[in-house]
């Protein structure tokens, strides 16, 4: 029965993720606040759960010709190197500290998101 509620959490995160809005920023707090999943596990689950969705979403975006390949490796290669560093950083800190850092990150991001949305388009 618990399983179904995990599916529901996934659908909520997935809809936003498929729209390119960072589903993880919803899915991770959803899992850790309402499902009492540990911060490290919520993050691991988010990373894995994104993979098949990303492939499905990419195929749809490719058909809609929305993918821009120009210079993309200049982002991806340093990105991969630094994400390894990030993983080791996450491993080095406790769940409680990681949870608070993630909360702070979300709060900052929400201000940035709110301001840019209000300013950018009328």
């Amino acid at each position, binding site marked *: 029965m618990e399983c179904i509620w995990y599916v529901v959490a996934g659908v909520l995160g997935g809809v936003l993720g498929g729209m390119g809005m960072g589903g993880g*920023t919803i899915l991770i707090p959803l899992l850790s606040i309402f499902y009492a999943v540990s911060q490290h596990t919520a993050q*691991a*689950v988010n990373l894995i759960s994104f993979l098949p969705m990303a492939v499905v979403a990419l195929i749809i975006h490719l058909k809609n010709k929305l993918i821009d390949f120009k210079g993309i490796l200049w982002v991806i290669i340093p990105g991969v190197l630094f994400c390894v560093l990030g993983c080791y950083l996450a491993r080095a800190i406790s769940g409680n500290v990681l949870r608070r850092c993630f909360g702070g990150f979300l709060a900052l991001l929400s201000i940035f998101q709110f301001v840019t949305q209000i300013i950018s388009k009328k």
Partner: protein
Amino acid sequence: MDKKVKNKSELMTNKKFRLYSVLAGCFAGIINGLFGGGGGMIVVPMLTNLLRREENRAHATAILIILPLSIVSGLFYASFGNLDLSVGVPVTIGVTVGGALGALLLSKLTSKWIGVIFSVVMAAAGIKLLLF
């Protein structure tokens, strides 16, 4: 005069483009690894503001950028013993279904109001995690 200025700025753009791309990659990478997500939230505004991509294209392209980061991060998290499959499998099923739905909605909905609502929900979740 106008033409000359324009040419010069285009040259700058090409060099700056790579610099911004590398910076965006580093920043998105460390965030994605540290927080197991959120890289897209870094890449999308960087693609639209710094690299001058259209909103819809930026959203779609961000998924292609974040995919390899998430594969690598996911493997590291799993190797650290953080992945719980009793949570991971049902969540993945949900995300896959929701993701297809979201991708179809992307080209239909205007992003402004979704973005505003989304930011309010994020703020609430962030404060909760930060303080309680």
